[in-house]
């Protein structure tokens, strides 16, 4: 039954993809329907009318668009149901599909871990499919055919779902690459602008390299076992060295997809150029699938995680990514690029917490390991929610203002009231403020880090608190970053014509999709127990250890370790907050004489404040840019136009700022240049002179004869 739901989700998304192909086939459908109606003239009055309506010239494309997304949404709902039921049932379902290699059919395994990520994907996909029709409506059918978009969206989603189902290396890689390739086409969707092409190329290249690393990782396991099924791989008895090699390969492969620094560069390139609902899926969900891969590989396949250095590596990589991600994010002015970098940050946090749990596992504290895993998965879940929300919001803004550059927005809070509220919720949860879901997982992360006392190893005991402090810094910077974002986009006065003219989006679906996510953000923030209960089953299956929190009042109190040590009760906090706010509000508003009066803001008496006098995003982040100057390659130019007598007084000042990621010049350009150089050298052997060629075969012959004898 559960399996039916799981397969149903895959098939439905696949079907939505195929249905999208019908976009250009209206004529054929029309003829077919005519024929059908002739065949049974007096049947299905209703179906007939529906058919005729939907096949009308003007209607057709719209109807189809909605149908496609409806299927997608259905698959999302199926995925949610499947995930929930498998996690509540706490069972493991296995199956085989008669495809694949002759001696190796596709093995399927659906357990709590898969179920949890199924849930994530399901929610995201549902929201996106609510949002989608309104968004893609803007595309011009001739330049950007919906058939392509819909097809690859469907393939993309089904690929992700299949990855979660896979239970042998071969099937896993097929699903994995299906996901990559489909998303590649989505990134390249608007391929007439070079940015997309470049991003798509980079993305596919890194996906390929990562996939190769993963294959090799499986290969290492496989060469110690018989066959590529995960069951066989689990049996593999590896020496520590080989286990470490496999781990490093997996980290490289999955990390490349998840986007940890410094192998993250495809992310900020690919996410901005993809259609917003796709970037939402990529950033919110696909990265999680990579995370799933890593967890599956490290916790499940490499049977006993005996090496705590793996955890240390994860912690360090995670910390670097978290800090780097948020610092880079802060300097971006392209909204979606910024969000992409902030995904890097969140993934970093998740990796860090995973590393913690790995260390606890290695030191024989399974319960704390479970705590860490819980924090990581919970944060993954939250990130999926609010990052989706933010990307969808960004999509709406782009849709309404034709702009992504936050430097030239402003004042939208009045023009787009609903969007602004939803976006605000997103910002609050991502900067992990209490009462929102982001905070809960951050809190759990801190709690995990604070358990370091149980460890014996002094180095770890001092390393982990430092990384925890880095986590704190990250959180604070994230808050600053998103204050900047929200302030620049929605507050103050409009900085450009577009944002002056902007208005709230009509399409209810787009708002509904975002509202769903926003609501979840808040709900989970208030009742985290719900999700924790689910994740416990995952931990139970992976580590054979759950948290004590599953007690009575689990929904009210959050006491992961013990009520003595730490506890947090969002509902009470919410109530208290409401009381406090209510009292002060009532008390101060009771006097009718003191209604608000509007006036011009203080302008130092010069008069004529213009929008250009507001703090811009660049200005907002300037202090941090000064303080962390080493983190970027900053190219700041100030040009002055002089005029007047002896060119003394300044007429105008031009300010240019380029900020670049260190990893480009340090890592990527050298590789590219190296390959080109090598290719040039290799090219020399083909001189074009036939006698030289004959010489080659002559020499080869002699050489090989010599080798033989």
């Amino acid at each position, binding site marked *: 039954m559960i399996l039916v739901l799981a397969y149903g989700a895959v098939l439905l998304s696949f079907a939505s993809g195929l249905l999208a192909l019908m976009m250009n086939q209206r004529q054929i459908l029309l003829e077919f329907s005519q024929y059908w109606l002739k065949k049974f003239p007096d049947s299905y009055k209703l179906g007939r009318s529906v058919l005729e309506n939907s096949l009308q010239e003007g209607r057709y494309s719209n109807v189809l668009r909605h149908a496609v997304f409806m299927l997608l949404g259905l698959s999302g709902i199926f995925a949610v149901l499947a995930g929930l039921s498998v996690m509540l049932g706490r069972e493991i379902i296995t199956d085989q599909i008669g495809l694949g290699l002759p001696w190796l059919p596709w093995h399927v395994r659906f357990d709590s871990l898969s179920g949890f990520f199924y849930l994530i994907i399901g929610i995201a996909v549902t929201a996106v499919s609510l949002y989608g029709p309104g968004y893609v409506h803007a595309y011009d059918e001739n330049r950007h055919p919906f058939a392509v978009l819909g097809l690859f969206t469907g393939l993309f989603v089904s690929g992700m779902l299949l990855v979660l189902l896979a239970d042998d290396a071969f099937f896993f890689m097929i699903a994995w690459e299906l996901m990559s390739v489909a998303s590649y086409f989505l990134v390249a969707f608007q391929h007439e602008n070079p940015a997309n092409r470049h991003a798509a190329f980079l993305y596919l290249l890194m996906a390929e390299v990562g996939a190769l690393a993963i294959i090799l990782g499986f290969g290492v396991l496989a060469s110690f076992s018989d066959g590529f099924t995960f069951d066989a791989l689990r049996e593999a008895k590896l020496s520590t060295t080989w286990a470490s090699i496999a781990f490093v390969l997996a980290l490289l492969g999955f990390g490349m997809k998840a986007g940890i620094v410094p192998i993250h560069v495809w992310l900020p390139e690919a996410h901005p150029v993809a259609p917003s609902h796709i970037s939402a899926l990529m950033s919110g969900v696909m990265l999680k699938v990579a995370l799933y891969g890593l967890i599956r590989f490290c916790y499940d396949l490499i049977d006993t995680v005996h090496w705590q250095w793996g955890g240390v590596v994860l912690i360090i990589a995670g910390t670097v990514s978290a800090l780097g991600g948020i610092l880079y994010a802060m300097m971006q002015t392209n909204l979606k690029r910024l969000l992409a970098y902030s995904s890097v940050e969140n993934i970093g946090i998740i990796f860090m917490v995973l590393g913690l749990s790995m260390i606890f596992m290695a030191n024989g504290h399974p319960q704390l390991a479970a705590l860490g895993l819980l924090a990581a998965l919970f944060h993954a879940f939250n990130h999926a929610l609010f990052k989706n929300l933010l990307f969808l919001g960004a999509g709406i803004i782009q849709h309404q203002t034709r702009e992504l550059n936050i430097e030239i927005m*402003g*004042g939208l*809070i*009045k023009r787009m009231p609903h969007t602004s509220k939803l976006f605000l919720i997103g910002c*609050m949860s991502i*900067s*992990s*403020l*209490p009462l929102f879901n982001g905070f809960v997982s951050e*809190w759990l992360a*801190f709690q995990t880090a*604070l358990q370091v006392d149980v460890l*014996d190893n*002094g180095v770890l005991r001092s390393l982990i*608190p430092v990384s925890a*402090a*880095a986590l*704190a*810094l990250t*959180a*604070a910077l994230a*808050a*600053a970053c998103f*204050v*900047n974002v*929200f*302030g*620049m986009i929605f*507050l*103050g006065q409009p900085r450009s014509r577009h944002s002056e003219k902007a208005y709230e989006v009509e399409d209810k679906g787009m708002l509904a999709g975002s509202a769903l996510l926003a609501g979840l953000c808040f709900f989970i923030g208030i009742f985290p127990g719900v999700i924790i209960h689910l994740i416990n089953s995952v931990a139970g299956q992976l580590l054979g250890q759950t948290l004590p929190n599953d007690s009575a009042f689990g929904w009210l*109190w959050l006491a992961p370790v013990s009520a003595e040590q*730490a506890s*947090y*009760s969002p509902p*009470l*906090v919410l109530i*208290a*907050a409401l009381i*406090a*706010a209510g009292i*002060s*509000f009532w008390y*101060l508003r009771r006097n009718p*004489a*003191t209604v*608000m*009066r*509007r*006036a011009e*803001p*203080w302008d*130092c008496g010069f008069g004529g*404040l213009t929008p250009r*006098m*507001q*703090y811009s995003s660049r*200005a*907002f982040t300037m*202090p*941090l840019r000064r303080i962390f100057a080493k983190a970027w390659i900053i190219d700041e130019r100030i040009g002055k136009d002089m005029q007047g007598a002896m060119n003394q007084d300044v007429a105008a000042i031009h300010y240019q700022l380029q900020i670049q990621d260190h990893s480009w010049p340090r890592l990527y350009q050298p590789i590219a240049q190296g390959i080109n150089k090598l290719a040039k050298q290799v090219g020399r052997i083909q001189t074009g002179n036939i006698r030289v060629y004959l010489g080659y075969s002559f020499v080869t012959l002699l050489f090989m004869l010599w080798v033989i004898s």
Partner: protein
Amino acid sequence: MSWLIAILQTLLFVALAPLLAGWLKWCKCCLQNRKAPSLFQPYRDLIKLTKKQPVVAGHASWLFTIAPYIIFSATVLAATVVPLIAVDLPTSASADVIVMVGFFAFARFFLALAGLDIGTAFGGMGSSREMTISSLAEPAMLMAIFTLTMTASTTNLSVAISHVLNEGLVLRPSFVFALFALMLVAIAETGRVPVDNPVTHLELTMIHEAMILEYSGRHLALIEWASQLKLMLYGVLVANIFFPWGIAETFSLQTLGLGLLVILGKLAVLAIFLAVSETLVAKMRMFRVQEYLGFAYLLGLLGMLSHIILETSR
């Protein structure tokens, strides 16, 4: 019973905050040979402000008008967490120290947004600087707090405090470091000299004031009150974490009364220290703040390490 005490304690917090501010001002005046206003001047200011009609910047949005309420109640929530006169109260169980930091972040978030909302240069400048400083201060503060929580192996403030209380007078090097770190952070977070100067209105030097420049009437009152409350909170943190003696562990009238008196005493002393330092030290440049906070972070780190290496090394 305990709930009642908790609520009373919170009210006490809210009520006493302006008094502390007044006392601080009084001390400074005395140190600077100025004629001091009465201790209750802050109360008068607040009342006056609530009576006034609030004026709001022309194109400020709803966010600007509700921000004060949010800021105030967030700070009050933080106050519920910190034990003032008695430990093991249910409220401090419902939210631990990390959550308290979260509340501060919450208030700050909206304060900064409000600063940006009015769409003038000052607001933006203020929010930018505020976010910068706070994002540097937060790790330092957490380092300091972690030292404590790892000693007491809990993040629940009242449990931690009673733990310190029960183990009696133990000289912990880590605590010394943590204490100084926390003090430095407190000064930065509450916007005192040398990081920020609450009394100045010289545009280019102000941080906190720049953000609330457009506020008036009851809004201003709320924000002022919130910042006084914040000052007191930090004071109580420093006082009760590191010198918890005298705080009530049982809910009898005299213990509570004693606790109240003791804490008043501690705060008074702290305020004097603060006043002296503010009189002696000059405000530092914006871009030297990172060194200041870096030092605070370093102290916190040292505290942490000394806790790990010196105190519980195995």
